[in-house]
């Protein structure tokens, strides 16, 4: 009799935990599974893509935490040496879009990684300075990226990541111009 109770009790606990866990994470799951699991959400705002995707890829908002995007938008007058100021209505709309979909505001393993900024210091301005990015690229030699005339910069994601524009950055979809697949 005691045995049966223990069995039923354990199964009950397990079932409850499973149901509770599913309910708590249901939103996250449908979002993540819909996106194919391991990328960041693609750029969904046409205005952002048009205004901010001409000199460089329109970086997905899930690549930086909201605090970083605020800093970027605050400093458009000197945007990495360029004057990238927008009309006020455009600037407001872009700022809202970026912060609402920032790395620390959405679900997904990649965004969670990008949201991990070092405890001290201001939020990084560059995706390429985030801890997550550095951890993923520290083995890529500079000569394959910065000194590669078809890449020029680590900020030029689509040069090597075949589906960067869609928010997909899987390692097995990397093809470095002049070199081929990343093999390690």
């Amino acid at each position, binding site marked *: 009799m005691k045995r049966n109770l223990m069995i039923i009790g354990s199964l009950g606990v397990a079932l409850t935990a499973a149901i509770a866990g599913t309910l708590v994470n249901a939103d996250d799951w449908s979002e993540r599974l819909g996106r194919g699991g391991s990328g960041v959400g693609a750029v969904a705002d046409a205005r952002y893509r048009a205004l901010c995707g*001409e*000199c*460089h*890829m329109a970086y997905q908002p899930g690549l930086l935490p909201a605090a970083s995007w605020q800093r970027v938008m605050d400093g458009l007058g000197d945007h*990495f*040496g*360029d*004057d*990238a100021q927008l009309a006020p209505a455009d600037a407001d709309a872009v700022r809202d879009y970026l912060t609402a979909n920032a790395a620390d505001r959405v679900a997904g393993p990649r965004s969670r990684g990008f949201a991990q900024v070092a405890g001290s210091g201001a939020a990084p301005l560059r995706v390429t300075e985030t801890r997550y990015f550095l951890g993923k690229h520290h083995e890529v030699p500079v000569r394959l990226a910065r000194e590669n005339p*078809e*890449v*020029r*910069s680590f*900020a*030029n994601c*689509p*040069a090597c990541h075949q589906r960067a524009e869609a928010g997909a950055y899987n390692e097995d979809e990397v093809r470095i111009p002049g070199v081929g697949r990343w093999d390690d």
Partner: protein
Amino acid sequence: MRRWALLLTALAGPAAASAGTAVEGLQAAYRSEGAGPFSASRGAAAWQRQAPAGNGEAPRSCATCHGADPRSAGRHARTGKPIEPLAPAVSPARLSDPETIEKWFRRNCEWTWGRACTPQEKGDFLTYITGGSP
């Protein structure tokens, strides 16, 4: 064969025409500011003219990012992003919106030459890029 050529011209026509309208409108505005006549050869020379970047980066000209001439594809000097050719004859959607043209003159003259372009220079550029006659 001729039917295809006609069809393609008909399709490209409106795009080229809108480029024409935008450029004409802007050049008229430049003339009213005292510029003109516009010269493709002056535009070509300006296209190659370099200015020091001033922040330690290599000197750059229009050609640095936009390619040897307006029909070439280019690449952003810093980010590496590919840039479609500027010539409407090659990329029909180019130079079709006067606001966009002015925006990029404003940004890129500053970034390349460290100053605004004069109406004369802008008019010369537009003539050169559209491959039109002065």
